[in-house]
């Protein structure tokens, strides 16, 4: 099992979710995060004081999947999230040791 962590633009959330759902993925977890990267930030001005803000609002989508699904998922997410402009974000893949569904106590694949 793998955890795929997608960091991308907030307004792409729905499209990424759709594309994952189409692959039969039934669960994911989303966090609002702030990203620092190549994408330049913006200026803010308050009473004449200028502030450069480097952090951009991003969403992090975490989804744990069976390893076999990985290529498809990576493919689908990239298609859904890509705009081609700087700031599209990253996909990270992490190893997972185990998964448990709290409700039933199932673990491993069945729990995903």
């Amino acid at each position, binding site marked *: 099992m793998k955890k795929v962590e997608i960091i991308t633009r907030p*307004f792409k959330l*729905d499209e990424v979710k759709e594309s994952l759902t189409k692959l039969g993925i039934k669960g994911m977890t989303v966090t609002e995060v702030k990203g620092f990267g190549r994408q330049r930030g*913006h*200026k*803010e*001005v*308050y009473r004449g004081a200028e502030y450069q803000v480097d952090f951009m609002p991003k969403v992090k989508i975490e989804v744990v999947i069976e390893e076999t699904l990985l290529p498809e998922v990576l493919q689908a997410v990239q298609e859904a999230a890509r705009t081609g402009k700087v700031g599209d974000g990253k996909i990270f893949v992490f190893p997972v040791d185990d998964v448990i569904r709290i409700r039933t106590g199932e673990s491993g694949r069945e729990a995903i």
Partner: protein
Amino acid sequence: MNGADTVFILVSAALVMFMTPGLALFYGGMTRSKNVLGTIMQSFICLGIITLVWILWGYSLSFGKDIGGLIGGLNFIGLKGVGMEPSPDYASTIPHLAFMIFQGMFAIITPALITGAFAERMKFSAFLLFTILWTTIVYSPLCHWVWGGGWMGAMGALDFAGGAVVHMSSGSAALAAALVIGPRRGFGKRSFVPHNLPMTLTGAAILWFGWFGFNAGSALAINGLAANAFVTTHIAAAAAAVSWIFIEWMHHGKPTTLGLASGAVAGLVAITPAAGFVGPLSALVIGFAGGIICFYGIHLKSKFGYDDSLDVVGIHGLGGVWGALATGLFASKMINPDGANGLFFGNPSQLWIQFVSVVATCVFSFVASFVLLKIVDSIIGLRVNDEDEEQGLDLSEHSERAYQL
């Protein structure tokens, strides 16, 4: 000069002034959080810029010496001759300045109402230019027609506190604006949900509170009529708030707080032209029907596909039309001997007069606004670019963020 009348009008003017920031909150709460400041700004700046327009030339165009029933003359330009003495022509028991400023508050809020139609996408610079032009070329003449000695008042059209001048005019301009500027990015696809409903409800509360000044103050003196207008205003707001939530309860299974607030505003709009011409029970009916009409009214936009973001057409446009016609139905000389009887009190011709005023107001405001918007668009462009819209007006137009909680 009458002291009690003067207190009444000054306090009313303060209340109407308070409505504009109230509107800013009402609208601001309904936008997405990245556009709340931009939206508040568009209302709030009217307090600044339209005040200047009003004292420099707007008041004169509205209430200056009548020219052919169409527009006021330039005799009051820069408030020349508008002083502490009562004017012989308007509100003769209060300082002319008090009348001027009371009227000014109406001129301020009217263009602010339009902003709901193009919320979340209009350039601030274009907005400013449009608003200055609109106040000069649409509002001032209309105001003159109805209250400044112009043809519409002369024809006998009844508009107690601005059904035509304020609501139909802004509602029609809103429709023009929604059409000219086009829908927001993602309209019909993404969800646009209000980011802060307590803010919207606070705004609605301030509007309701201020509307007492708007409608009762329009009696321009403290008397039984003012009390009547106060009462009809309150009743219509209440009735429309109730009818709106009941009808949405029916349709969607739940009554909503946004429905409550929307209904209250719809009722307040509907009673505006009628407040000093109808009695309490008529107000009940006008308000109740107003809530229902506007509830269905806001669905027009999905039918016709224009993006009137915060439902100015549905609420101020339709509510204003209904109010004007309702005045032609329910007006009674028993309430206001200086008014007229409506259809239900034996005078069908009043309904016709009201109808004419509705058509004239809506057509004039729609067409003139449409042209003005096209002009402004060709000069500086109405709309922010896609990236700025995506980022939100707060950052792209004002370099600010609303919340850093």
